[in-house]
Protein backbone atom coordinates (compact mmCIF):
# COMPACT_ATOMS: atom_id res chain seq x y z
CA UNK A 1 0.00 0.00 0.00
CA UNK A 2 2.71 2.44 0.96
CA UNK A 3 4.73 1.32 -1.99
CA UNK A 4 1.72 2.04 -4.17
CA UNK A 5 1.67 5.56 -2.95
CA UNK A 6 5.07 6.28 -4.41
CA UNK A 7 4.18 4.94 -7.78
CA UNK A 8 1.20 7.12 -8.30
CA UNK A 9 1.29 10.67 -9.44
CA UNK A 10 0.78 13.17 -6.71
CA UNK A 11 2.00 16.49 -5.32
CA UNK A 12 0.79 18.63 -8.17
CA UNK A 13 -2.88 18.59 -8.81
CA UNK A 14 -4.13 19.07 -12.31
CA UNK A 15 -7.43 20.37 -13.43
CA UNK A 16 -9.99 17.71 -14.16
CA UNK A 17 -11.70 17.53 -17.52
CA UNK A 18 -14.86 18.89 -15.95
CA UNK A 19 -13.49 22.37 -15.62
CA UNK A 20 -12.88 22.55 -19.32
CA UNK A 21 -16.56 22.20 -19.96
CA UNK A 22 -17.46 24.69 -17.33
CA UNK A 23 -16.49 27.83 -19.14
CA UNK A 24 -19.25 29.61 -20.88
CA UNK A 25 -19.33 28.10 -24.34
CA UNK A 26 -19.49 30.23 -27.42
CA UNK A 27 -23.00 30.61 -28.64
CA UNK A 28 -26.20 32.32 -27.74
CA UNK A 29 -27.41 30.17 -24.87
CA UNK A 30 -25.61 28.99 -21.78
CA UNK A 31 -26.53 26.25 -19.36
CA UNK A 32 -25.37 26.79 -15.79
CA UNK A 33 -23.34 23.69 -14.83
CA UNK A 34 -24.44 24.09 -11.24
CA UNK A 35 -28.24 24.69 -11.31
CA UNK A 36 -28.80 23.66 -14.94
CA UNK A 37 -30.83 26.76 -15.73
CA UNK A 38 -30.44 28.12 -19.24
CA UNK A 39 -29.55 31.74 -19.91
CA UNK A 40 -28.61 33.98 -22.76
CA UNK A 41 -24.86 34.33 -22.80
CA UNK A 42 -25.27 38.12 -22.71
CA UNK A 43 -27.23 37.85 -19.46
CA UNK A 44 -24.39 35.97 -17.81
CA UNK A 45 -21.81 38.34 -19.20
CA UNK A 46 -23.67 41.33 -17.82
CA UNK A 47 -23.69 39.54 -14.48
CA UNK A 48 -19.87 39.27 -14.21
CA UNK A 49 -20.07 35.74 -15.57
CA UNK A 50 -21.97 34.52 -12.54
CA UNK A 51 -25.27 32.65 -12.61
CA UNK A 52 -28.21 34.96 -11.82
CA UNK A 53 -30.00 32.05 -10.18
CA UNK A 54 -27.40 30.20 -8.06
CA UNK A 55 -24.39 32.56 -8.12
CA UNK A 56 -22.18 29.92 -9.74
CA UNK A 57 -18.96 31.62 -10.80
CA UNK A 58 -18.17 30.73 -14.40
CA UNK A 59 -14.59 30.71 -15.54
CA UNK A 60 -13.38 34.21 -16.32
CA UNK A 61 -10.56 34.76 -18.79
CA UNK A 62 -7.71 37.13 -18.03
CA UNK A 63 -8.81 39.75 -20.60
CA UNK A 64 -12.40 39.58 -19.29
CA UNK A 65 -11.22 40.01 -15.69
CA UNK A 66 -9.10 43.02 -16.56
CA UNK A 67 -11.96 44.49 -18.52
CA UNK A 68 -14.42 44.11 -15.66
CA UNK A 69 -12.08 45.28 -12.94
CA UNK A 70 -9.96 48.14 -14.21
CA UNK A 71 -11.13 51.63 -15.05
CA UNK A 72 -11.94 51.97 -18.74
CA UNK A 73 -8.90 52.57 -20.87
CA UNK A 74 -6.50 52.49 -17.95
CA UNK A 75 -4.83 49.16 -18.70
CA UNK A 76 -1.30 49.09 -20.09
CA UNK A 77 -0.04 45.59 -20.75
CA UNK A 78 3.53 44.44 -19.97
CA UNK A 79 5.56 41.75 -21.75
CA UNK A 80 2.61 40.76 -23.91
CA UNK A 81 4.88 39.32 -26.61
CA UNK A 82 6.82 36.96 -24.39
CA UNK A 83 6.47 33.35 -25.51
CA UNK A 84 7.88 30.00 -24.43
CA UNK A 85 10.67 28.08 -25.99
CA UNK A 86 10.90 24.35 -25.58
CA UNK A 87 13.72 24.04 -23.04
CA UNK A 88 13.43 20.29 -22.48
CA UNK A 89 12.64 19.61 -26.14
CA UNK A 90 9.36 17.97 -25.38
CA UNK A 91 7.65 16.62 -28.47
CA UNK A 92 4.57 18.61 -29.54
CA UNK A 93 5.01 21.22 -26.82
CA UNK A 94 5.33 24.18 -29.16
CA UNK A 95 2.33 23.02 -31.17
CA UNK A 96 0.28 22.79 -27.99
CA UNK A 97 1.26 26.33 -27.09
CA UNK A 98 0.36 27.56 -30.52
CA UNK A 99 -3.02 25.89 -30.32
CA UNK A 100 -3.75 27.59 -27.01
CA UNK A 101 -2.54 30.92 -28.34
CA UNK A 102 -5.04 30.64 -31.16
CA UNK A 103 -7.81 29.49 -28.83
CA UNK A 104 -7.32 32.22 -26.23
CA UNK A 105 -5.87 35.16 -28.13
CA UNK A 106 -3.13 35.55 -25.51
CA UNK A 107 0.47 34.41 -25.72
CA UNK A 108 0.82 32.69 -22.36
CA UNK A 109 -1.02 31.70 -19.17
CA UNK A 110 -0.82 35.10 -17.49
CA UNK A 111 -1.53 38.69 -18.51
CA UNK A 112 0.34 41.42 -16.63
CA UNK A 113 0.31 45.18 -16.63
CA UNK A 114 -0.83 48.28 -14.80
CA UNK A 115 -4.02 50.27 -14.57
CA UNK A 116 -6.34 51.95 -12.11
CA UNK A 117 -9.28 50.78 -9.97
CA UNK A 118 -11.61 53.67 -9.12
CA UNK A 119 -8.64 55.89 -9.81
CA UNK A 120 -6.16 54.07 -7.61
CA UNK A 121 -3.10 52.90 -9.54
CA UNK A 122 -2.10 49.26 -9.29
CA UNK A 123 -0.06 46.59 -11.00
CA UNK A 124 -2.06 43.54 -11.94
CA UNK A 125 -1.35 39.97 -13.02
CA UNK A 126 -4.18 37.68 -14.06
CA UNK A 127 -3.65 34.01 -14.80
CA UNK A 128 -5.81 32.33 -17.40
CA UNK A 129 -6.91 28.74 -16.86
CA UNK A 130 -7.76 28.35 -20.54
CA UNK A 131 -4.09 28.42 -21.46
CA UNK A 132 -2.46 25.06 -20.73
CA UNK A 133 -4.75 24.83 -17.68
CA UNK A 134 -3.03 27.88 -16.25
CA UNK A 135 0.09 25.83 -15.61
CA UNK A 136 3.23 27.68 -14.64
CA UNK A 137 6.09 27.49 -17.09
CA UNK A 138 9.06 29.78 -17.43
CA UNK A 139 7.11 32.55 -19.15
CA UNK A 140 4.37 32.61 -16.52
CA UNK A 141 7.00 32.74 -13.77
CA UNK A 142 9.07 35.33 -15.60
CA UNK A 143 6.11 37.61 -16.33
CA UNK A 144 4.91 37.45 -12.73
CA UNK A 145 8.40 38.06 -11.35
CA UNK A 146 8.78 41.04 -13.69
CA UNK A 147 5.38 42.39 -12.66
CA UNK A 148 6.46 42.20 -9.00
CA UNK A 149 9.71 44.00 -9.82
CA UNK A 150 7.90 46.63 -11.83
CA UNK A 151 5.35 47.26 -9.05
CA UNK A 152 8.29 47.65 -6.71
CA UNK A 153 9.97 50.09 -9.05
CA UNK A 154 6.81 52.14 -9.60
CA UNK A 155 5.93 51.95 -5.90
CA UNK A 156 2.41 50.75 -6.61
CA UNK A 157 0.48 47.77 -5.18
CA UNK A 158 0.21 44.43 -6.96
CA UNK A 159 -2.99 42.44 -7.33
CA UNK A 160 -2.56 38.88 -8.55
CA UNK A 161 -5.43 36.66 -9.66
CA UNK A 162 -4.37 33.03 -9.67
CA UNK A 163 -5.89 30.26 -11.79
CA UNK A 164 -3.57 27.33 -12.21
CA UNK A 165 -3.39 23.58 -12.17
CA UNK A 166 0.21 23.83 -10.96
CA UNK A 167 3.43 22.94 -12.69
CA UNK A 168 3.85 22.72 -16.45
CA UNK A 169 5.13 19.20 -16.97
CA UNK A 170 6.75 19.98 -20.31
CA UNK A 171 9.13 22.41 -18.63
CA UNK A 172 10.02 20.04 -15.80
CA UNK A 173 12.25 21.40 -13.10
CA UNK A 174 12.38 24.81 -14.79
CA UNK A 175 8.70 25.07 -14.04
CA UNK A 176 9.36 24.17 -10.41
CA UNK A 177 11.99 26.88 -10.13
CA UNK A 178 9.44 29.54 -11.05
CA UNK A 179 7.98 29.02 -7.58
CA UNK A 180 11.27 30.16 -6.14
CA UNK A 181 11.85 32.96 -8.60
CA UNK A 182 8.47 34.56 -7.92
CA UNK A 183 8.83 34.08 -4.15
CA UNK A 184 12.28 35.68 -4.10
CA UNK A 185 10.84 38.61 -6.06
CA UNK A 186 8.00 38.87 -3.55
CA UNK A 187 10.44 38.91 -0.66
CA UNK A 188 12.10 41.99 -2.13
CA UNK A 189 8.73 43.64 -2.67
CA UNK A 190 7.70 42.69 0.87
CA UNK A 191 10.90 44.10 2.34
CA UNK A 192 10.32 47.35 0.46
CA UNK A 193 6.86 47.63 2.04
CA UNK A 194 4.94 46.80 -1.14
CA UNK A 195 1.27 45.87 -0.91
CA UNK A 196 0.47 42.49 -2.43
CA UNK A 197 -3.08 41.19 -2.74
CA UNK A 198 -3.55 37.56 -3.75
CA UNK A 199 -6.96 36.69 -5.16
CA UNK A 200 -7.36 32.98 -5.82
CA UNK A 201 -9.81 31.75 -8.42
CA UNK A 202 -10.77 28.30 -9.60
CA UNK A 203 -8.46 26.36 -9.63
CA UNK A 204 -5.37 27.35 -7.64
CA UNK A 205 -3.38 24.21 -6.93
CA UNK A 206 0.09 22.70 -6.73
CA UNK A 207 3.07 24.93 -7.25
CA UNK A 208 1.09 28.15 -7.63
CA UNK A 209 -0.78 27.49 -4.41
CA UNK A 210 2.53 26.68 -2.69
CA UNK A 211 4.16 29.93 -3.79
CA UNK A 212 2.83 33.40 -4.59
CA UNK A 213 -0.88 32.57 -4.23
CA UNK A 214 -0.42 32.01 -0.48
CA UNK A 215 1.83 35.00 0.11
CA UNK A 216 -0.53 37.96 -0.08
CA UNK A 217 -0.70 40.64 2.58
CA UNK A 218 -4.35 39.84 1.99
CA UNK A 219 -5.40 36.43 0.71
CA UNK A 220 -8.82 36.30 -0.93
CA UNK A 221 -10.63 33.68 -2.98
CA UNK A 222 -13.71 33.42 -5.13
CA UNK A 223 -16.55 31.27 -3.77
CA UNK A 224 -16.23 27.55 -4.43
CA UNK A 225 -12.78 27.88 -5.99
CA UNK A 226 -10.67 24.74 -5.73
CA UNK A 227 -7.51 25.59 -3.80
CA UNK A 228 -4.92 23.16 -2.49
CA UNK A 229 -1.46 21.70 -2.61
CA UNK A 230 -1.97 18.04 -3.51
CA UNK A 231 -4.67 16.67 -5.78
CA UNK A 232 -7.79 15.22 -4.21
CA UNK A 233 -7.37 11.81 -5.84
CA UNK A 234 -3.77 11.50 -4.72
CA UNK A 235 -4.74 12.31 -1.15
CA UNK A 236 -7.59 9.81 -1.21
CA UNK A 237 -5.25 7.14 -2.51
CA UNK A 238 -2.64 7.98 0.08
CA UNK A 239 -4.80 8.13 3.18
CA UNK A 240 -7.38 5.58 2.01
CA UNK A 241 -10.22 7.75 3.06
CA UNK A 242 -12.98 9.57 1.24
CA UNK A 243 -12.64 13.31 1.52
CA UNK A 244 -15.55 15.61 2.36
CA UNK A 245 -17.28 17.33 -0.58
CA UNK A 246 -16.13 20.79 0.42
CA UNK A 247 -12.49 19.66 0.74
CA UNK A 248 -10.08 22.22 -0.74
CA UNK A 249 -12.81 24.72 -1.59
CA UNK A 250 -12.39 28.40 -0.78
CA UNK A 251 -14.90 27.90 2.03
CA UNK A 252 -12.88 24.97 3.42
CA UNK A 253 -9.73 27.09 3.44
CA UNK A 254 -11.58 29.96 5.06
CA UNK A 255 -12.85 27.65 7.80
CA UNK A 256 -9.28 26.53 8.46
CA UNK A 257 -7.98 30.05 8.79
CA UNK A 258 -6.12 30.24 5.52
CA UNK A 259 -8.01 33.07 3.83
CA UNK A 260 -8.83 36.59 4.94
CA UNK A 261 -12.13 36.57 3.09
CA UNK A 262 -14.09 34.69 0.48
CA UNK A 263 -15.00 37.47 -1.93
CA UNK A 264 -17.79 36.93 -4.47
CA UNK A 265 -17.21 38.50 -7.85
CA UNK A 266 -19.83 41.15 -7.32
CA UNK A 267 -17.82 42.47 -4.40
CA UNK A 268 -14.46 42.13 -6.14
CA UNK A 269 -14.04 45.68 -7.35
CA UNK A 270 -15.31 47.37 -4.19
CA UNK A 271 -13.23 45.15 -1.93
CA UNK A 272 -10.04 45.82 -3.86
CA UNK A 273 -10.79 49.50 -4.24
CA UNK A 274 -11.34 49.87 -0.48
CA UNK A 275 -8.04 48.18 0.32
CA UNK A 276 -6.19 50.33 -2.20
CA UNK A 277 -7.81 53.41 -0.68
CA UNK A 278 -6.93 52.48 2.91
CA UNK A 279 -3.33 51.85 1.93
CA UNK A 280 -3.28 55.03 -0.10
CA UNK A 281 -4.50 57.08 2.84
CA UNK A 282 -2.14 55.27 5.17
CA UNK A 283 0.81 56.29 3.05
CA UNK A 284 3.57 54.00 1.95
CA UNK A 285 1.72 53.11 -1.20
Amino acid sequence: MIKDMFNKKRKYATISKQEEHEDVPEGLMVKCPSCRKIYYRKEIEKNLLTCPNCDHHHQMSAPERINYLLDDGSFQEWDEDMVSENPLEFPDYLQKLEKDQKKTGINEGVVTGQGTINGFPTAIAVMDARFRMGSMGSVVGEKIARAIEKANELNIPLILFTASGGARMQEGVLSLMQMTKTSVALERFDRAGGLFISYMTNPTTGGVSASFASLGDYNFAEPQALIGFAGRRIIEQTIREKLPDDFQTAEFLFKHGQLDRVVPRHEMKDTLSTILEIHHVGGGQ
Partner: protein
Amino acid sequence: MKHVLPFEKPVVELRQKIAELKSFTSESDVDLTEEIATLENRLERLEQEVYGNMTPWDRVQMARHAERPTTLDYINHIFTDFMEMHGDRYYGDDEAIVGGIAKFGNQPVTIIGHQRGKDTKDNLRRNFGMPHPEGYRKALRLMKQAEKFNRPIVTFIDTKGAYPGKAAEERGQSEAIAKNLREMAGLTVPVICIVIGEGGSGGALGISVGDKLYMLENSTYSVISPEGAAALLWKDSNLAQKAAESMKITSYDLKQLNIIDDVVEEIQGGAHRDLENQSNHISKCIEDSLKELKALPTEELLEKRWEKYKKIGAVTTVVQS
Protein backbone atom coordinates in the same frame (compact mmCIF):
# COMPACT_ATOMS: atom_id res chain seq x y z
CA MET B 1 25.72 -6.22 -0.12
CA LYS B 2 22.05 -6.52 0.75
CA HIS B 3 20.54 -4.30 -1.91
CA VAL B 4 21.61 -4.71 -5.49
CA LEU B 5 20.24 -2.48 -8.23
CA PRO B 6 19.48 -4.17 -11.56
CA PHE B 7 22.11 -2.27 -13.53
CA GLU B 8 24.92 -3.15 -11.13
CA LYS B 9 24.23 -6.89 -11.06
CA PRO B 10 27.22 -7.87 -13.26
CA VAL B 11 29.54 -6.00 -10.90
CA VAL B 12 28.13 -7.65 -7.82
CA GLU B 13 28.25 -11.09 -9.41
CA LEU B 14 31.86 -10.69 -10.38
CA ARG B 15 32.69 -9.42 -6.94
CA GLN B 16 31.06 -12.48 -5.40
CA LYS B 17 32.99 -14.75 -7.69
CA ILE B 18 36.26 -13.19 -6.60
CA ALA B 19 35.29 -13.60 -2.96
CA GLU B 20 34.53 -17.26 -3.59
CA LEU B 21 37.89 -17.85 -5.25
CA LYS B 22 39.64 -16.09 -2.41
CA SER B 23 38.00 -18.20 0.24
CA PHE B 24 38.71 -21.34 -1.78
CA THR B 25 42.38 -20.41 -2.03
CA SER B 26 42.67 -19.84 1.67
CA GLU B 27 40.94 -23.09 2.55
CA SER B 28 42.70 -25.42 0.12
CA ASP B 29 46.19 -25.86 -1.23
CA VAL B 30 45.21 -24.80 -4.74
CA ASP B 31 46.73 -21.43 -5.60
CA LEU B 32 44.41 -19.20 -7.59
CA THR B 33 46.24 -15.94 -7.02
CA GLU B 34 46.79 -15.36 -10.70
CA GLU B 35 43.17 -15.98 -11.63
CA ILE B 36 42.05 -13.70 -8.84
CA ALA B 37 44.33 -10.93 -10.04
CA THR B 38 42.91 -11.23 -13.55
CA LEU B 39 39.37 -11.07 -12.28
CA GLU B 40 40.14 -8.13 -10.04
CA ASN B 41 41.48 -6.28 -13.03
CA ARG B 42 38.36 -7.10 -14.92
CA LEU B 43 36.22 -5.99 -11.98
CA GLU B 44 37.90 -2.63 -11.93
CA ARG B 45 37.20 -2.11 -15.62
CA LEU B 46 33.66 -3.35 -15.27
CA GLU B 47 32.97 -1.03 -12.35
CA GLN B 48 34.24 1.94 -14.32
CA GLU B 49 32.11 0.94 -17.23
CA VAL B 50 28.92 0.32 -15.25
CA TYR B 51 29.17 3.25 -12.85
CA GLY B 52 30.68 5.55 -15.44
CA ASN B 53 27.74 5.14 -17.78
CA MET B 54 24.74 5.37 -15.52
CA THR B 55 21.47 6.32 -17.20
CA PRO B 56 19.09 8.78 -15.55
CA TRP B 57 16.97 5.82 -14.48
CA ASP B 58 20.00 4.16 -12.84
CA ARG B 59 20.55 7.35 -10.91
CA VAL B 60 16.92 7.50 -9.83
CA GLN B 61 17.35 4.04 -8.36
CA MET B 62 20.60 5.01 -6.72
CA ALA B 63 18.96 8.09 -5.18
CA ARG B 64 16.35 5.76 -3.70
CA HIS B 65 18.82 3.08 -2.63
CA ALA B 66 17.79 1.45 0.65
CA GLU B 67 21.25 1.96 2.11
CA ARG B 68 21.69 5.52 0.87
CA PRO B 69 22.97 7.77 3.67
CA THR B 70 20.41 10.12 5.21
CA THR B 71 20.65 13.61 6.65
CA LEU B 72 21.48 12.36 10.15
CA ASP B 73 24.26 10.12 8.76
CA TYR B 74 25.92 13.11 7.14
CA ILE B 75 25.34 15.34 10.15
CA ASN B 76 27.20 12.87 12.35
CA HIS B 77 30.13 12.70 9.97
CA ILE B 78 30.46 16.32 8.96
CA PHE B 79 29.60 18.32 12.08
CA THR B 80 30.38 18.15 15.79
CA ASP B 81 28.24 18.86 18.83
CA PHE B 82 24.99 18.50 16.89
CA MET B 83 22.03 19.15 19.14
CA GLU B 84 18.62 18.54 17.65
CA MET B 85 15.83 21.02 18.35
CA HIS B 86 12.18 20.14 18.06
CA GLY B 87 8.77 21.55 17.32
CA ASP B 88 7.19 24.36 15.34
CA ARG B 89 5.66 26.07 18.42
CA TYR B 90 2.22 25.99 16.79
CA TYR B 91 1.13 22.40 16.40
CA GLY B 92 3.75 19.70 16.84
CA ASP B 93 7.09 18.21 15.93
CA ASP B 94 7.37 16.74 12.46
CA GLU B 95 10.12 14.15 12.43
CA ALA B 96 10.21 14.09 8.64
CA ILE B 97 12.42 17.16 9.04
CA VAL B 98 15.27 17.35 11.54
CA GLY B 99 17.02 20.52 12.59
CA GLY B 100 19.38 21.85 15.17
CA ILE B 101 22.64 23.55 15.94
CA ALA B 102 26.17 22.25 15.59
CA LYS B 103 29.72 23.19 14.78
CA PHE B 104 31.41 22.91 11.42
CA GLY B 105 35.03 23.05 12.46
CA ASN B 106 34.96 26.13 14.63
CA GLN B 107 31.99 27.65 12.85
CA PRO B 108 28.60 27.46 14.57
CA VAL B 109 25.88 26.50 12.09
CA THR B 110 22.21 25.63 11.94
CA ILE B 111 21.39 22.44 10.09
CA ILE B 112 18.02 21.46 8.60
CA GLY B 113 17.22 18.37 6.59
CA HIS B 114 14.56 15.96 5.44
CA GLN B 115 14.89 12.70 7.32
CA ARG B 116 13.86 9.36 5.84
CA GLY B 117 13.62 6.26 7.97
CA LYS B 118 16.09 3.41 7.81
CA ASP B 119 13.51 0.67 8.23
CA THR B 120 9.73 0.34 8.30
CA LYS B 121 9.33 1.34 11.92
CA ASP B 122 11.63 4.30 11.52
CA ASN B 123 9.87 5.26 8.32
CA LEU B 124 6.49 5.35 10.02
CA ARG B 125 7.92 7.69 12.62
CA ARG B 126 9.52 9.84 9.92
CA ASN B 127 6.56 9.56 7.54
CA PHE B 128 9.00 8.41 4.82
CA GLY B 129 10.65 11.82 4.92
CA MET B 130 7.49 13.51 3.63
CA PRO B 131 6.82 16.58 5.76
CA HIS B 132 3.62 18.12 7.04
CA PRO B 133 3.30 21.92 7.40
CA GLU B 134 4.72 21.80 10.93
CA GLY B 135 7.96 20.41 9.49
CA TYR B 136 8.38 23.46 7.27
CA ARG B 137 7.38 25.76 10.11
CA LYS B 138 9.93 24.18 12.44
CA ALA B 139 12.54 24.63 9.73
CA LEU B 140 11.64 28.30 9.36
CA ARG B 141 11.72 28.85 13.11
CA LEU B 142 15.22 27.41 13.29
CA MET B 143 16.36 29.41 10.28
CA LYS B 144 15.10 32.67 11.81
CA GLN B 145 16.97 31.73 14.97
CA ALA B 146 20.11 31.17 12.90
CA GLU B 147 19.66 34.62 11.38
CA LYS B 148 19.28 36.20 14.82
CA PHE B 149 22.55 34.69 15.98
CA ASN B 150 24.31 35.17 12.67
CA ARG B 151 24.86 31.46 12.05
CA PRO B 152 25.14 30.15 8.48
CA ILE B 153 22.56 27.53 7.51
CA VAL B 154 23.16 24.20 5.81
CA THR B 155 20.18 22.22 4.52
CA PHE B 156 20.01 18.64 3.26
CA ILE B 157 17.29 17.83 0.75
CA ASP B 158 15.99 14.27 0.61
CA THR B 159 12.25 13.86 0.10
CA LYS B 160 9.81 12.36 -2.34
CA GLY B 161 7.69 15.43 -1.67
CA ALA B 162 5.57 17.13 0.92
CA TYR B 163 2.97 14.74 2.32
CA PRO B 164 -0.27 14.67 0.33
CA GLY B 165 -2.68 14.25 3.23
CA LYS B 166 -5.90 15.66 4.59
CA ALA B 167 -4.43 17.09 7.77
CA ALA B 168 -1.56 18.61 5.78
CA GLU B 169 -4.04 20.51 3.62
CA GLU B 170 -6.11 21.60 6.62
CA ARG B 171 -3.07 23.02 8.32
CA GLY B 172 -1.87 24.85 5.22
CA GLN B 173 0.77 22.83 3.38
CA SER B 174 0.82 25.38 0.58
CA GLU B 175 1.22 28.34 2.91
CA ALA B 176 3.96 26.62 4.90
CA ILE B 177 6.04 25.94 1.80
CA ALA B 178 5.30 29.30 0.18
CA LYS B 179 6.32 31.18 3.29
CA ASN B 180 9.61 29.31 3.51
CA LEU B 181 10.40 30.19 -0.10
CA ARG B 182 9.87 33.86 0.58
CA GLU B 183 11.50 34.00 3.99
CA MET B 184 14.55 31.98 2.97
CA ALA B 185 15.07 34.45 0.14
CA GLY B 186 15.53 37.19 2.72
CA LEU B 187 17.72 35.43 5.30
CA THR B 188 20.71 37.62 6.09
CA VAL B 189 23.03 34.66 6.71
CA PRO B 190 24.61 32.34 4.12
CA VAL B 191 22.37 29.41 3.16
CA ILE B 192 23.90 26.31 1.56
CA CYS B 193 21.56 23.62 0.22
CA ILE B 194 22.65 20.12 -0.72
CA VAL B 195 20.43 17.54 -2.39
CA ILE B 196 21.53 14.14 -1.08
CA GLY B 197 18.80 11.85 -2.42
CA GLU B 198 15.50 12.71 -4.03
CA GLY B 199 14.48 16.32 -4.42
CA GLY B 200 10.76 15.98 -4.88
CA SER B 201 9.00 19.14 -6.08
CA GLY B 202 7.61 21.76 -3.70
CA GLY B 203 8.36 19.56 -0.72
CA ALA B 204 12.05 19.76 -1.58
CA LEU B 205 11.95 23.46 -2.49
CA GLY B 206 10.55 24.30 0.94
CA ILE B 207 14.01 24.05 2.50
CA SER B 208 16.18 24.67 -0.54
CA VAL B 209 16.25 28.36 -1.30
CA GLY B 210 19.73 29.68 -0.71
CA ASP B 211 23.00 31.05 -1.97
CA LYS B 212 24.37 27.73 -3.11
CA LEU B 213 22.54 24.67 -4.35
CA TYR B 214 24.51 21.46 -4.80
CA MET B 215 23.48 17.97 -5.77
CA LEU B 216 25.22 14.73 -5.03
CA GLU B 217 26.04 13.10 -8.34
CA ASN B 218 23.35 10.44 -8.04
CA SER B 219 20.61 12.56 -6.57
CA THR B 220 17.59 13.88 -8.46
CA TYR B 221 15.55 17.07 -8.46
CA SER B 222 12.21 17.15 -10.18
CA VAL B 223 8.81 18.69 -10.39
CA ILE B 224 7.18 15.26 -10.14
CA SER B 225 8.40 11.68 -9.73
CA PRO B 226 9.17 9.84 -12.99
CA GLU B 227 6.25 7.54 -12.22
CA GLY B 228 3.94 10.50 -11.74
CA ALA B 229 5.17 12.21 -14.88
CA ALA B 230 4.62 9.05 -16.92
CA ALA B 231 1.10 8.66 -15.58
CA LEU B 232 0.33 12.28 -16.36
CA LEU B 233 1.98 12.57 -19.76
CA TRP B 234 1.34 9.14 -21.22
CA LYS B 235 -1.25 7.70 -18.83
CA ASP B 236 1.12 4.88 -18.02
CA SER B 237 3.25 4.85 -14.89
CA ASN B 238 5.29 1.97 -16.34
CA LEU B 239 6.94 4.46 -18.63
CA ALA B 240 8.77 5.95 -15.66
CA GLN B 241 12.09 5.11 -17.20
CA LYS B 242 11.27 7.10 -20.31
CA ALA B 243 10.01 9.97 -18.15
CA ALA B 244 13.25 9.94 -16.14
CA GLU B 245 15.16 10.49 -19.37
CA SER B 246 13.00 13.26 -20.78
CA MET B 247 12.26 15.21 -17.60
CA LYS B 248 15.93 16.16 -17.05
CA ILE B 249 16.19 15.39 -13.36
CA THR B 250 19.79 14.30 -12.75
CA SER B 251 22.54 16.38 -11.19
CA TYR B 252 24.22 16.78 -14.56
CA ASP B 253 20.97 17.89 -16.19
CA LEU B 254 20.43 20.54 -13.53
CA LYS B 255 23.98 21.72 -13.85
CA GLN B 256 23.47 22.07 -17.56
CA LEU B 257 20.23 23.98 -17.02
CA ASN B 258 22.15 26.32 -14.68
CA ILE B 259 19.88 25.56 -11.78
CA ILE B 260 22.52 24.18 -9.43
CA ASP B 261 25.95 25.55 -8.61
CA ASP B 262 27.74 22.25 -8.85
CA VAL B 263 27.64 18.48 -8.77
CA VAL B 264 29.23 16.87 -5.71
CA GLU B 265 31.17 13.87 -6.90
CA GLU B 266 29.99 10.56 -5.49
CA ILE B 267 31.90 7.51 -4.41
CA GLN B 268 32.01 4.98 -7.27
CA GLY B 269 29.01 2.73 -6.82
CA GLY B 270 27.11 5.23 -4.69
CA ALA B 271 27.44 7.32 -1.52
CA HIS B 272 26.56 4.34 0.70
CA ARG B 273 29.75 2.56 -0.32
CA ASP B 274 31.90 4.90 1.74
CA LEU B 275 30.06 7.31 4.02
CA GLU B 276 33.26 8.69 5.51
CA ASN B 277 34.73 9.65 2.18
CA GLN B 278 31.44 10.93 0.83
CA SER B 279 31.11 13.15 3.89
CA ASN B 280 34.56 14.53 3.17
CA HIS B 281 33.47 15.53 -0.33
CA ILE B 282 30.46 17.32 1.13
CA SER B 283 32.56 18.98 3.85
CA LYS B 284 34.88 20.38 1.25
CA CYS B 285 31.96 21.84 -0.61
CA ILE B 286 30.50 23.45 2.55
CA GLU B 287 33.89 24.79 3.52
CA ASP B 288 34.52 26.45 0.17
CA SER B 289 31.03 27.93 0.04
CA LEU B 290 31.23 29.33 3.57
CA LYS B 291 34.53 30.94 2.84
CA GLU B 292 33.11 32.65 -0.22
CA LEU B 293 29.75 33.64 1.27
CA LYS B 294 30.96 34.87 4.64
CA ALA B 295 33.12 37.42 2.87
CA LEU B 296 30.07 39.10 1.32
CA PRO B 297 28.31 42.04 2.96
CA THR B 298 24.64 41.21 3.68
CA GLU B 299 23.31 43.43 0.95
CA GLU B 300 25.49 41.81 -1.66
CA LEU B 301 24.59 38.36 -0.39
CA LEU B 302 20.88 39.07 -0.87
CA GLU B 303 21.39 40.75 -4.22
CA LYS B 304 23.37 37.77 -5.51
CA ARG B 305 20.70 35.39 -4.26
CA TRP B 306 18.10 37.29 -6.25
CA GLU B 307 20.26 37.44 -9.37
CA LYS B 308 20.75 33.70 -9.14
CA TYR B 309 17.02 32.91 -9.13
CA LYS B 310 16.10 35.68 -11.52
CA LYS B 311 18.13 34.00 -14.23
CA ILE B 312 16.50 30.59 -13.96
CA GLY B 313 14.19 29.95 -16.84
CA ALA B 314 14.67 33.46 -18.15
CA VAL B 315 16.91 32.09 -20.86
CA THR B 316 14.07 30.05 -22.22
CA THR B 317 11.91 33.01 -23.05
CA VAL B 318 12.03 34.95 -26.25
CA VAL B 319 10.15 37.98 -27.30
CA GLN B 320 8.43 37.86 -30.66
CA SER B 321 9.55 40.52 -33.04
